[in-house]
């Protein structure tokens, strides 16, 4: 049950779980280039199919206000069905978040064509905007 904790995750406003095969550019480079908000922590996985629902919930427990999962395009998954499994787990995690009174749109899944980073940049910016809008409402 023990999980390795990322020191930065406690301060992370947004956590992005990214499939190793979809992210062609080092996520930190995206930050350095100012393409994604500074408050994001990327966690690379060998395959998003390995991502458990509990890891998503734990990211919220550790302070994240939003989470996204970036996997291969369904039909191009490096491990055949990894991103399909991840999408189902994201769906289940959204259900639990809703039951807990957390807006499920704080959690997103994106499917990234091999070698591209644009969908990751887009979802990161979109979540940042949503969070700003939610904070503006409260």
């Amino acid at each position, binding site marked *: 049950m023990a999980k390795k904790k990322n020191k930065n995750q406690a301060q992370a406003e947004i956590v992005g779980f990214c499939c190793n095969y979809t992210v062609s550019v080092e996520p930190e480079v995206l930050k350095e280039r100012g393409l994604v908000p500074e408050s994001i922590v990327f966690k690379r996985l060998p395959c998003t199919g390995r991502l*458990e*629902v509990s890891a998503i*919930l*734990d990211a919220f*427990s550790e302070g994240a206000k939003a989470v996204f999962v970036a996997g291969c395009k369904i039909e191009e998954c490096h491990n055949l069905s990894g991103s399909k499994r991840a999408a189902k787990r994201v769906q289940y995690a959204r259900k639990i978040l809703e*039951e*807990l*009174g*957390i807006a499920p749109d704080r959690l997103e899944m994106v499917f990234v064509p091999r070698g591209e980073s644009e969908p990751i940049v887009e979802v990161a910016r979109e979540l940042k905007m949503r969070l700003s809008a939610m904070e503006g409402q409260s």
Partner: protein
Amino acid sequence: MIIAERKSMKEILSMLEGVKKLLVLGCRGCVAVCSAGGDKEVEIMASAIKLGKKLLNEPIEIDATTYIRQCDPEYLEPLKKDGKKYDAVLSMACGVGVNFIADLCPDVKVLPGVNTTFYGANLSSGEWKEMCAGCGSCVLHLTGGLCPVARCAKRLSNGPCGGSQGGRCEIHPETPCVWHFIHERLQEQGEADRLKEIMPIRDWSTAGEAGPRRRVREDLLP
């Protein structure tokens, strides 16, 4: 196997009001097979409770483990002592496990993490269907192996009823009429004449209508 489903987090958090130290206890029996209360579900439940309690600003310490079964006394033995360390134990087993903990570990406050629903078969990943009602008076030898108690909405002993249309149940049109299939099956097996016999009124006392059921086999007693 026994099929169960996770209770809503709202209900779980309501049960856990005031609980500061919790054990989430899974079972590797039926509830693990139907993905309701095995290792993985225990881990998810622990994470969900941790997040829910954080939102409520209520600190909680959570341990999680899974026993081989919660319906056999030998596997519950450690809980008699270990369970006392917790304000509550959230059992992810079926109602049998929860009851057995309550019986054997009176010093442990046990709470149910799942709703126990029915005895079912696994149709495909993530889909289960009731196949047996545990009525204690099996008539499957008379009905081509298809159970009219579990699979007929009216639990008819001599069907189908007048509402069966095109092989579908009038109460749940998406459900096949089991009596329609019983007729078809017995005709295929050349035993259609069996349907001319009227099945007697069912004795429901074996179905638990006369209190909790108990079975003893002298040859196996210690």
